[in-house]
């Protein structure tokens, strides 16, 4: 049986510059992977690794230059409005900056109702919006429906975006660094919320991040990207516990982690510890 999502040899090249100074940049290079239903995959990489470009191709915001993306063995087609709507119903994305993903003139209730209307929801739209707000922990929901984005905190905005993503009952959520602009204590709440929702609705999750520790927290499998290519992939504990690629090792050593020394003293010997305590 084929996987829920299959990304087959996908590449994306961006052209830039004008006339005589044209240059081409290969943002994503020949990436393939499969994702099972209900599985969580973390795509980890630093800026410029191509992780966000890959995410955007998966949800159809941009077209791959080559390669194919398949859902349950069928190539995803997004040529007609109907095809785009069908794909959107299955795969939803949440973004790094929720403020940019919201119309500032629309109240929360309208923001959430919009996808319901687009996808022809037949029940009571308002009731459904309230239910979704409660689902993401925005209570009392009646207060939140009439708020405008600027009246919400960053964490609350991200919750609204999650509610909006859930509105169409998707099969998967692609989350592109949704916590990187939030304070850590707020970010961890959002991560916990996504983990709960994933279990409750058996969602697949693609978690895009530059932070290895958050990848471990959120995902079962991990894919490490560098300069548009996948350098290592595998079970998250396996890759973090025994990285094989030098780049993964380098990332691990550079990631601050107070629990490193006590948990695994051998992991960071004095010589290659990033910054030994100055004393």
């Amino acid at each position, binding site marked *: 049986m084929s996987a829920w999502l299959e990304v087959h040899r996908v590449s994306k090249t961006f052209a830039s510059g004008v006339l005589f100074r044209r240059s081409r940049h290969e943002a994503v290079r020949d990436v393939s992977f499969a994702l099972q239903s209900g599985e969580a995959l973390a795509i980890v990489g630093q800026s410029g690794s191509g992780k966000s470009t890959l995410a955007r191709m998966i949800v159809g915001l941009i077209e791959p230059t080559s390669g194919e993306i398949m859902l349950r063995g069928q190539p995803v087609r997004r040529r007609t409005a109907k095809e785009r709507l069908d794909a959107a119903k299955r795969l939803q994305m949440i973004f790094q900056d929720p403020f940019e993903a919201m119309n500032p003139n629309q109240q929360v209730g309208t923001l959430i109702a919009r996808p319901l209307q687009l996808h022809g929801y037949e029940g009571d739209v308002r009731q459904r919006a309230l239910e979704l707000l409660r689902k993401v922990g925005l209570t009392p929901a009646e207060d939140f429906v009439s708020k405008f984005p600027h009246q919400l905190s960053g964490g609350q905005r991200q919750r609204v975006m999650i509610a909006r993503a859930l509105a169409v009952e998707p099969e998967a959520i692609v989350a592109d660094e949704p916590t990187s602009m939030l304070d850590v204590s707020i970010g961890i709440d959002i991560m916990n919320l996504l983990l709960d929702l994933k279990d409750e609705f058996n969602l697949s999750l693609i978690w895009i991040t530059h932070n290895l520790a958050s990848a471990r927290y959120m995902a079962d499998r991990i894919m490490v990207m560098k300069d548009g290519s996948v350098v290592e992939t595998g079970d998250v504990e396996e890759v973090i516990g025994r990285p094989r690629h030098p780049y993964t090792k380098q990332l691990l050593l550079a990631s601050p982690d107070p629990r*490193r020394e006590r*948990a695994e003293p051998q992991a960071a010997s004095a010589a290659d510890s990033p910054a030994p305590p100055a004393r």
Partner: protein
Amino acid sequence: MALLEVSDLQVQYETVRGPFKAVDGVSFSIRRGELFGLVGESGCGKSTTAYALSRLLKPPAKVTGGSIAFDGRELTALSDAEFDRIRWSRIPIVLQNAMSNLNPVMRIGAQLIDVLQAHRPKLTKAQAVAEAARALELVDLPKEKLHRYPHELSGGMRQRVVIAMALLLKPDLIIMDEPTTALDVITQQGIVSKIVELKREFGFAVLFITHDLPLLLEFCDRVGVMYAGKMVEISSREELLKGGRHPYTQGLLQSFPSLHGPKVRLKGIPGLPPDLISPPQGCRFQPRCGQARPECGVASPGERFDEKGFVSCHLYGQGGAAS
């Protein structure tokens, strides 16, 4: 004697909704050659503190009280002209965005030389060029970069240039406000280890401000934790590695996923930071605190200085003054 002694610092912002204190009675000290971290989440006042120390606050922000003693001198009493003489030479500040420190239309070399000549007028051009080149070498940049413009360098290299610039005049204290936040972890690691290495060689102290507590625990001697305009804890790195004393610090440590040890569900900290225009009565963290007791909502916690450092929390005794 401490190199820097900040006591009861108050910074007030005037807004249309009324005044609020972004920094409300913050005290801490930094010893010579110490790596001191200041951590907290957005709006806690950590950057405002850095700007107050460098006298870079702009209206509507204003220092409204407290004292800043630096190497025995009271900085708040200095005139702007007097302050200008020490700002970069003895207390440089490295900002999150290196481009806030650099001039985009001047070559790197010209900017470094500019700093040298402004503070050491007797220096000849040739000496200044030689010192600028040496400063770049200290941060592992070839002297050819003197001829480059900032935009020709990567983010990490630019931040190294700013650190070189900070080192030019043999400072006593370098303030760093989120200097690596915009950089990749590998670049961040390179810069942080460079700072530690240079500190060992030159003996300057560092005030390193960030929201990233795990990063501070990699290299700082002591860390101050701020919440809603207040200092809530100052502890050694060792103490924090044991989990910290203030419930907010404990919550903060519980908010960072780890790469090591068993995978556990993290609790984080419920709720949101308070609105500083009308902060909650009593302890400012009390509405989010899992260990709050009846007195926490009534009286401000006292300030406890002891052998472990500093903590301001009712759990550690001292009823404190009613607010």
